[in-house]
């Protein structure tokens, strides 16, 4: 290494030490991060988000019993992503769409061959043949249970894209139907916008939760959140599969 590298490493270590000091518990500056085992979740996120309440009208919420809390999903991260900040999520999906479109514009020639010249071995082919439906099912499970367990649209879509990547790795002649992918992607995006517009029509603001919330913790609960998550899953899965197909067939 040259002198410049040592100097930058030294500067990084000093900066890390300063940041560690600033967030350490010894100096009381309001920024303290507790140690691993001692964290109370209500100090980690805003307490109003956890209690499903931004209007200071909170009541006690009991899993599987309470009816119609403010945004009725059991997983509060989902409430933030698909309810309080749904417009943000729409923007993120648009960013992903623009990235996929740019990649397809540069590399999208569907007549080229696979990057790997031969098939994988027999064992890998049979293993992928068994695993592909299981992984697809896992992705659908993660998408549908997004408002009950960790995970959701983005994660499930990525699992589905990984299953398709495994198909590409095992069989050199595997090709995706890009027209179908485009139709799925456009359908999901337009449906997301239409749901937002229905909320604007019924309740007066874009992307409002206009369905009944139901009992917290059951599968059919949380109003419009599962529908939005299913649409996000379809869109992300189609986009990531298109990106992988464009990269490997070039």
């Amino acid at each position, binding site marked *: 290494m040259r002198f410049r590298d040592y100097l930058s490493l030294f500067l990084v270590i000093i900066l890390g030490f300063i940041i560690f000091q600033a967030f350490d518990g010894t100096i009381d500056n309001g920024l303290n991060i507790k140690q691993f085992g001692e964290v109370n979740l209500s100090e980690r996120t805003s307490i109003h988000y956890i209690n499903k309440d931004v209007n200071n009208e909170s009541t006690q919420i009991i899993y599987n019993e309470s009816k119609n809390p403010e945004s009725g999903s059991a997983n509060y991260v989902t409430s933030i992503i698909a309810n309080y900040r749904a417009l943000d999520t729409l923007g993120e999906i648009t960013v992903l769409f623009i990235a996929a479109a740019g990649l397809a514009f540069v590399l999208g020639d569907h007549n080229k061959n696979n990057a*790997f010249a031969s098939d*994988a071995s027999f064992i*890998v082919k049979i293993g992928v043949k068994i695993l592909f439906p299981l992984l697809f099912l896992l992705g659908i499970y993660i998408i549908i249970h997004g408002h009950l367990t960790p995970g959701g649209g983005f994660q499930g879509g990525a699992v589905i894209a990984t299953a398709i990547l495994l198909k590409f*790795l095992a069989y050199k002649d595997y090709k995706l139907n890009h027209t179908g992918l485009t139709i799925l992607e456009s359908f999901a995006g337009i449906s997301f916008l239409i749901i937002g517009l229905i909320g604007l029509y019924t309740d007066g603001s874009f992307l409002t939760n206009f369905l009944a919330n139901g009992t917290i913790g059951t599968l059919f609960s949380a109003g419009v959140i599962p529908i939005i998550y299913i649409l996000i899953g379809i869109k992300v899965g189609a986009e990531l599969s298109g990106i992988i197909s464009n990269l490997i067939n070039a």
Partner: protein
Amino acid sequence: MLNFVFVLIFLALILSGFRFFKGPSSSDRVVALDTLTTIISVLLVTSSLFFDNYILLDISFVFAALSFTSVIVISRYLEGGNS
């Protein structure tokens, strides 16, 4: 009881991490990465027993199902014959 398990996993992590950073060829590093993945998925399952939370099992699901993808990609690359 679970602390003993965590000690064993700690030692296993140290040993396979040593092979990862030493390994003479790239294939050795891939083998060490595969072993580390298995060890970490066991760590996740036992620590979800430690935290006593049913929901956290989903992550070890994903680990067990998807972590061999990178191994297959790297071995397809090492196999040669890229067009």
